[in-house]
Structures are given as structure tokens and as C-alpha cells.
């Protein structure tokens, strides 16, 4: 296999050390790094698609995302001046105040990383004000809010209302999701978008930052 094929298969199969080595080899062979990153991103999208069909499971997708990030660390210095998908916007995300459930949010985080986003994960049980402050610190383009329970859904609206009161609502695209939520509810609370699952969330984030679905 060529260096490029080695690298892509290492990422697709979640072999972090091989991905790092493959990235170094690709650099030493003088491959077009921008084109390579595009192909790696496409490979990660295929990993995400396989996960959506449950042909693979979360541990395998996490391993691929880790391998992808390891490869990107090696390739990043060569990407100065235009990194394409790899330089997609930052998403600050968390679950609402009072909600300790975070697997859904974590899966979305992996999918976003797989699609080249920078992800700042605030974890579970996040105060509405913390969403806003951390989004400002990170220079986020998107704020992602996850909620699993009906009694923690109102806290998502609080984040959006607080953004308005702080006069920063227009700075961010807000996407929401979680088992009891719906597109109608997202619209009602003033979010910019809602996704039913992790793949939908990644596509929505791309759409919100102008990358298209």
C-alpha cells in the first residue's frame, strides 16, 4: 500500500500509532497535504456513516476519531494558509443545567470532530451563563445544547434567552437536540437548528457555518 492508503486505512480502522506514522511518512514523501486532509475527512465521514448504520459501534468510531486527530496533529504545521475542512469552526457544547446524561452529546462531539470541527465539550449539567462565557472565550461559531429530560428542556431556552439579554445572540448559531426534543420545540425556543441524531447534528453544524449539507 502507498503511504496515503496506509494513513487512510489506519484512520478508518482506528489505529492511532499507525495513523501518526502514516502522517509522518506522507509528509516525508511530499504528498499534497491539503488533498490528503480532504481524503481523510471523507474517510471519517464514511466511518460516521457506518456508525449510523450500526455496522460499527461507538468504541470503533471513537478510535477512528482519535487516530484522525493524531494524524492531524502531525499534518497541521503543513496546513498553514488554508486547511479546508480541517479548519472548520469551533463548536461549544454541553448538556443543560440539571442534566447529567451525556452520551448523546458525546457521540455528537465525536461526529463533529470527525467532520473537522474544533469541539469544546463543557460536559453535563452546564449553567446557561457558562455556555455563553465559554463560547466567547473559544470564539465559537456554534453552540450545541443537549437535553435528555423534559424537566431539563427549559434550561435550553434559558441559554438562548440569556444570549439575547447579553446582546450576543447574533454571534452564534445555536443547535439543540436530545431524545425528548423536536424540530417544533427547537423553533419555539428560538434555536437555529435541531437534529435527530449525531449524523444529523454534524450535517446541521456544517450547514450552519456555511459548509452545506
Amino acid at each position, binding site marked *: 500500500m502507498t503511504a496515503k492508503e496506509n494513513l487512510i486505512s489506519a484512520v478508518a480502522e482506528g489505529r492511532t500509532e499507525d495513523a501518526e506514522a502514516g502522517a509522518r511518512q506522507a509528509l516525508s514523501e511530499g504528498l499534497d497535504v491539503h488533498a490528503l486532509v480532504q481524503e481523510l475527512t471523507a474517510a471519517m465521514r464514511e466511518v460516521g456513516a457506518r456508525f*449510523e448504520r*450500526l455496522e460499527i*459501534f*461507538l*468504541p*470503533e468510531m*471513537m478510535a477512528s476519531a*482519535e487516530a484522525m486527530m493524531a494524524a492531524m496533529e502531525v499534518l497541521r504545521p503543513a496546513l498553514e494558509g488554508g486547511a479546508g475542512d480541517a479548519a472548520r469552526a469551533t463548536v461549544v457544547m454541553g448538556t443543560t*443545567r*440539571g*442534566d*447529567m*446524561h*451525556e*452520551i448523546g452529546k458525546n*457521540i455528537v462531539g465525536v461526529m463533529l470532530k470527525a467532520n473537522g470541527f474544533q469541539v469544546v465539550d463543557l460536559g*453535563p449539567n452546564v449553567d446557561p451563563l457558562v455556555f455563553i462565557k465559554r463560547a466567547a472565550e473559544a470564539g465559537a461559531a456554534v453552540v450545541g445544547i443537549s437535553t435528555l*429530560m*423534559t*424537566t*431539563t*428542556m*427549559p*434550561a435550553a431556552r434559558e441559554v438562548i434567552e440569556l444570549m439575547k439579554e447579553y446582546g450576543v445572540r447574533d454571534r452564534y448559531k445555536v443547535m439543540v437536540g436530545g*431524545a*425528548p426534543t423536536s424540530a417544533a420545540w427547537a423553533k419555539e425556543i428560538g434555536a437555529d437548528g435541531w437534529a435527530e*441524531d449525531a449524523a444529523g447534528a454534524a450535517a446541521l453544524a456544517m450547514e450552519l457555518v456555511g459548509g452545506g449539507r
Partner: protein
Amino acid sequence: MAPMWDVVERAFTGPFCEEQDYLSRRLIPALQAAVKRHRIKYDPATPVPWDDALADAVWQAAVELFLEAGVYHQDTHRIILFSEEEVREALYAAPESYTVGSGRDARTFGRREVEDARPPFCILSPDITYDEPLFLPVCLAYLREPLLDGFCAPVLESFLGEKIKAYTPLELGGSLEHAMSLREAARLIGRPGVFLVAVGTAESDSAQISVSQEGWGVRPTDSRLVGSITEFMTNNQLLNKAVHYRQYGCFSGSLTGAIYGGYAGGAEGTAVLETAYHLKGLLVHFCSYQQNFPFHLKYGSNTTRELLWVTSVYSQAIARNTRLVQTSNGFANAGPGTDMLLYEAAAHALASTVCGANLWEIATARNKCHNRATPLEARLAAEVGHAAARMRLTRRQANEIVLKLLQRYEAGIPDAPPGREFAECYDVAKARPRPEYLDQYRRVKRELGEMGIRFCY
């Protein structure tokens, strides 16, 4: 068995670990290694397997996972660990049955064997939120059910017309309303001492503690739940609940749902993890029984072929190797008023009962639709459970029937119909099913009879 306060101490003194490292470097590798070591293999052709060696391998893998991974405490970032001796001791000391409820409504809630002739203990529960005015009628409708041994009421979404917000006084108010109305419903229907699992409206520890009251609230003869955080985690809120339930003296169930497709991986890992959750419930949350609801990551249900296998396998693993009391909580894809929901309820009850579990039935419409669950599908599940036990149905026979049921609903899972709301299926004022809904239930029951289920009446 490690005393309660010793376990709490370990939450502050165990090895430090960041949460993501616990998941990706400790829990997942330990689970994958245990599955591989014991050669556990999912067989889609046999959703209700009858291989005792498989069940025992899953049990061994679960014990090894629990000992190796430990349980993660999210607030202290420390891992709570146990020795094998402590695990064995706790398993030996665990009661195999309890007298729950009070007076003439008291029942024995106990462990069951694989292919046990004793009917399952049936806890009926809609597992979903309802409008505040519907709370009492829904409770009355469920409490009318003759095979109900215990009841877990709907969850309130509003209190005095205000949306409940978790961890606020509104949650506390909603929890009080929940406990009081539930107790009133039990008295009104003539089952004042019925075993109640309450209160689902209280997410926080403070709201749970506020309803521990023998007069109007939750009694020591009732049960509470300690819900778990995905996967294999605890925190101070959960330990506060667990400690309070012990000192109050009520029963408590360890509510856990390993996720198929999530950190657990496939069906094999999900079965091992759900089995291991019984040890977490016993040793970390000091629970009297285990309330299991493993579910499908994509659909949020557990009546798919993979999840029926998972349910069958962990139920057998526990029934064959421990004295622990377990319930199996159904999560269906379709909603009320559909044939599909009734087929799903029957499949879940059948697989669970013959494999040694008690029943907790049944969440509908992927547990996502407000006001959408009725007692009738739970009634059918309980009747199937009783029938399967009384006719000494074997796992192999149950597997044949479950395969026939899967033929009827499996293809419909991706686009399962959400069905209708409670008020469309029931006469709300009388808390009784509408005639056409009752006709549908009777028709499906006849079909199940033709498949080989001999109902008790």
C-alpha cells in the same frame, strides 16, 4: 459486604482518573477483553438462546469487568473498586425475596429461575410524561389492572401549570404533587397498600428526599430508584439518594440501561455490561433489586432482535448465577392503538419471563411521546408472562414464538407508528379502555393463542 459508608469513602479515596480516560482506556478495553476471553457471540437466529454455557460465560465476564473497571464517580473523578471477596460476600448476603406493599396489598417480590413456573412479579408503568390533569386518571387506569403487583406512575411535566425545571422548587412541588396524587389514586381504587415505585418526577436528590413520608408520601414498603449514568458511573446526587433510601428503610431499584451501539459496542458487550450493572446496583447503590432497560442507540427500544437477545442472556446470567431480584423493562418502538406495540409487548414479556426476569411493562413509541402509553399493552405483557410461566414454556419454545412475532413487526421498526394518546384509547373519566381498543387487544391476544401461548384466562 462493604458497609455503606465504606463505599462512600472509596468515592473520595479511590484512584484518580479523568472521565474520558476511564471510558476509553479502562471500561471499554476491559469490556471488549472480557467478551473476547469468554468467546461470547451474538446469534441473530436465536433471540432467546437456551445455551446455559453462554449465560454462565456472560456472568463470568461481568464479574471480571466489575472488578477490573470499577465504577467511576463523576464528581470526585475517582474509581470505586471492590475485591472479589466483597463481591462474593455481597452476592451471598443479598436477599432473594422481599415482602413489598402493605396490608392485603402486600406481595412477595422475589428472584425467579430460568423457565420458572412461578409467574413474574408485574410492575406496570407508562414510563413517560403526561399532562398534569391526566395524572390521576392514568394512575387509576393502571391501578385497575388485576395482574398489577406494583405500579410506577407517570412523570409530571408541569406543576400548577408551570413547566417543571429540574433542581428547582418547581421540581420539588411537582414531586410532592406526584407522591400525593399517586397515594390518593391507590386509595381511591381500593388498593391503599399497593407497592409503589416513586417518584419519577424527582430527578434531584433533594426532591426525592422531600417525598419520604409515611402518611401522604412514599412509604418504607414502597420503592425508589437510583438511576444510573452511562456507562458505569455514579455521582454525589446518586449516592445521596442511595444513602437516603437505606436510612429511610424503603426498597430501592438500580435503574440501568446499557446502550447497544454505544460504549458497550454490540449485543455481546451490552449483555455483559447490563449483567455487570447488577453488581453496581448491589454494591455501589445498595439496591434491593435491579431494574434493567438495555436499549438500542438508534431506536431507544429493546424489542429489536439484538436487544431481545441481550435481555434473554443477561436475565439468564443473573438467574442462573445469583440470588438477585431482577426486573426487565420493555421499551417498544410503536405506540398505543397499534398491533405492532402489542406484538412487541408480547415478545419482550415472553423472552424476559422464560429467562428468569420479573416484568416492568411497558414504555411505548420509543419512550419519546408525551401522553402516549396505556395500561392495555402492559396488561397483555403481564398476561403473556403469567401464561409462559404457568405453561412451563421453555426457552426453545419461547424462541420459536418470538421469531414469529419478529416476523410481524421487525420490518416496521425503522418507521414504527407512534400510535395514539391515552385519551384517544381510553375513556378518561371512567379510566377504562374504549371498546374498539379493547377489541384490538382481544384480537391480538387470540393471535398469540394461535402461536402457542395458553393464556391463564
